[in-house]
């Protein structure tokens, strides 16, 4: 191998190794920070991990919202009309949070199977249902009809 080729080989090897490391680190960072979505049924069946950041979505169950009298703590249930999961949250809920509305909560499951939410998302549209929720409801065969046709149009 002549010196010029050898130099070229080194450069190519250097680039390949460098890109490999960069891609590896990026994928590692990505894997540490993905939040998987689980439906209440999946959570009830124990598919969701405990103590890891997840997203859960469903419709807020009528009459399930309990507010604390002293602080901003609030607790409510979300359902895919098959199973329900209790969510606990401290803070200000989004404008469109209300009973019967589809929401997505981000947080961790504790040992009681309660989702300790750090963020609650509701979309700025009264008929909106998060796609994940719509799909979960569709799967469970519990999509509300005919109101369901109004969703996401």
């Amino acid at each position: 191998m002549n010196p010029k080729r050898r130099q070229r080989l080194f450069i190519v090897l250097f680039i390949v190794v460098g890109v490999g490391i960069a891609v590896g680190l990026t994928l590692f960072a990505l894997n540490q920070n993905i939040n998987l979505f689980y439906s209440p049924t999946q959570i009830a069946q124990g598919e969701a991990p405990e103590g890891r950041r997840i997203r859960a979505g469903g419709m807020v169950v009528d009459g399930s919202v309990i507010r604390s009298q002293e602080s901003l703590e609030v607790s409510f249930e979300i359902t895919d009309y098959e199973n329900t999961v209790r969510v606990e949250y401290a803070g200000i809920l989004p404008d469109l949070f209300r009973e019967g509305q589809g929401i997505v909560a981000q947080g961790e499951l504790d040992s009681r199977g309660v989702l300790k939410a750090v963020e609650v998302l509701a979309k700025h549209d009264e008929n909106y249902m998060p796609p994940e929720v719509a799909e979960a409801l569709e799967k469970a065969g519990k999509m509300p009809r005919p109101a369901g046709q109004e969703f996401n149009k």
Partner: protein
Amino acid sequence: MIPELGEYALILSLCLSVLLAIVPLVGATTGNALWCSYARPLASAIFAFVLFSFLCLSWAFLHNDFSVAYVANNSNTALPWYYRLSAVWGGHEGSLLLWLLILAGWIVAVAVKSRNLPQDILARVLAVMGMISTGFLMFVLFTSSPFERYLPQVPQEGADLNPLLQDFGLIVHPPMLYMGYVGFSVAFAFAIAALLSGRLDAAWARWSRPWTNIAWAFLTLGIALGSWWAYYELGWGGWWFWDPVENASLMPWLIGTALVHSLAVTEKRGVFKSWTVLLAIFAFSLSLLGTFLVRSGVLTSVHAFASDPERGFFILVLLALSIGGSLLLYAIKASHVKSESSFSLLSRESFLLINNVLLTVICATVLLGTLYPLLIDALNLGKLSVGPPYFNALFVPLSALLALSLGVGTLVRWKQTSATLLLSQLWLPALAALLAGGVTLALLPQWPGIWAAIGLLLAWWVVFAGLRDLFNRVRHKRQPLAAMFQQSRAYYGMVLAHVGVAVLAVGIALVSTFSEQSDLRMEPGDSRTFGGYEFVFDGIRKVDGPNFHSDTGVIRVLRDGELYTEMYPEKRLYNARGMVMTEAAIDPGLFRDLYVALGEPLGGDAWAVRVQYKPFVRWLWLGGLLMTVGGILAATDPRYRRQAKRETASAAA
């Protein structure tokens, strides 16, 4: 009648666009000057018809013509006239019409401003832009016409504009953003025209530079406005969420920034030519991708108002055609491109290359984080989202490297610099940055964390390296002080934009580390001290607006026991849609914002209240503004006009 005229004008402009895409291109290929000369009048005609169509839609909004479905869905008689006008681009169909209008505007601007271009090049550029407008006109006419009627049952009242969008921010944010997105189509068209003609030289880079700078400046402004709007209107004081839609606008900006720098090298030194072309292709492709991501409804976000698979499919086809076609052309033609000069490792070329590589890598990581959930979903592997920590973990260190090389890049010379000369240039600004940074850190109430500290140091570094560069430029002049004001506009533009980077870095570092926030339960008379201010809640007043009812909170802010200001955060109920909206109250300042937002009523007279103290948050948008002004200054440098004149003269001779 008038909406039908609007639709008809769109059909006419589609026909004209097809002509514009074909006739000048054939003329340029066969050397037929007559066919080439059709490009300019066609461009003006397209603009006139699209403008007419846009005015028709505006007329329908102003006159509350609810027989037009789009108007009925996005307007209301109670809406003030200025929001009725801005509602034109408040939904999917209208915002695409705005996209088209801006595209037509860019086409006619190129046609008017480029009289000095060789005729065949101008013909090719306008033909490529004609292809783009053909694609988008077809998209609007076939899948999302804003002029469709609700007949025969005309609604008596419109459904109202989404209250989130009833705001000054929305009036200006989309047009600015689109000016940027669509502006990259000019750089794209120049690149494709250069590839087609096989004349990739410094002249091409010089023609393309001012257009790219302007587009980049508008995109910067659009992103900054979007961030500002999210800050005060979404209600919770965040300024960047790594939301997929924000990423969709950030990606073309990153590649556009790389393009602006790479064009400079191509113009001055005749190297990086094929790389520059590739960047121009990518910048526009990412703008198209952004439009696809936002408009197809594959993403969940505030912007995704229309989810219609047919539309998504159509844009996907457009995307595949334009990216595939241009990359194919690139693959065929770019191998013939030869560099006109060489450079050594320590040269400005190298550092601009580092800048380009870093920006591209940042863009790639953002792209990965944005598309990964879509990919996983498409493969049926589950639903997931990528959290902000991923983006922060990669974006922050890479941007720090970028700022570090920015300082060196401004001081290193073209072609070659000896290491000793470079060191003699660098040590003083480096020392000054360390000292100033140390003083800044000592003045802070506490240690801000390693990355914020690095950010502050680098901000000083960028400023001092720029000062050193200015000193080099003037010190051998007879009157150094006067020479400071006699530099070229392009130079001042560069300096402003780089100062903007420093200001932005300071803003990000401080607002991320020293923001304070707390959610409180407050009853009338309750008070809370926060960030050196005392907030007293005086209860709620009922106020009626033109199309909403509002619960307005009254909050007295005391400083050292004396009344400082009163703030009125609102909770609005919009009548037409029954939607609840939070209107935050902000006391802005150059060094800190006080931010109060109302949560929900908690029974009795108690309300949830969020109070925030945001130091240096204005610096984020100030930085963006400086970059915008810098970009525009650089683009209007008289050099481009003089050069163009000289070229015409030599061509005529």
